């Protein structure tokens, strides 16, 4: 259940009024339905990558990354990307949800999206450690 619990703990934050109030369309990866705003949206990926035992009684910890790919309209500078990243920081950075602890974030600016050059993208990355199952 560890993997599902990690996803539940992270995805639940995007259903909270705190995030919804930002009115930023957010979808999980592997979503292929229509988007409410095709000029600005975020794609959420939760990527567990390594696990270990952190106590002698075989308690498992799982590490990984939460990546939020931010798409904004091309040609209008990078301010909106930074604003959205700050809003994600307010939601996720150094927070603990259930037994999932989130660390400090960083941003990788990618530039124009190769599959749709009307969009400019950046990836907001934040590591997590989940304790237990």
């Amino acid at each position, binding site marked *: 259940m560890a993997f599902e619990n990690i*996803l539940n703990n992270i995805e639940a934050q995007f259903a909270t009024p705190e995030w919804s109030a930002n009115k930023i369309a957010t979808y*999980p990866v592997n*979503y292929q339905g229509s988007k409410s705003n095709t000029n600005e949206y975020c794609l959420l990926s939760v990527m567990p990558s390594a696990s270990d035992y952190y106590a002698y009684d075989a308690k498992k910890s799982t590490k990984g990354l939460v990546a939020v790919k931010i798409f904004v309209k091309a040609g209008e500078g990078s301010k909106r990307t930074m604003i959205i990243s700050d809003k994600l920081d307010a939601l996720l950075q150094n927070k603990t949800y259930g037994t999932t602890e989130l660390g400090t974030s960083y941003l990788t600016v990618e530039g124009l999206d190769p599959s749709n050059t009307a969009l400019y993208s950046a990836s907001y990355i934040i590591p997590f450690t989940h304790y237990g199952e």
Partner: protein
Amino acid sequence: MSLKARVAQAVDKAFNAIGDLKQTGTLKVKNVGSYDFASQTTKGSVSTQTIELFIESKKSKSGEGFTTSALIKGVVDLEVYDTLTVGGVAYNITDYSDNGFVTEAILSKEK
């Protein structure tokens, strides 16, 4: 008669001319408009539509599922969420293109 109407009439004629090669399928269309992070499910509506189609070809690699190419009469908006049932076989839709008169769909099915 406009050129568009003339081409549409020709498509009707062609689908009538192929007789029993023409098949009827049921397209189950799921229009997904959002994702609910609270319930972790997509939200949308499901509707069904009866369509006329012609199975052009079917190919399969050893040990894998198969893909089928079908020509559908008229323009239908297909998505990955949709399924098409023809002759009791349910296919997933992986790719499609249309020219305003007929739709060519690539259908996939697991083995």
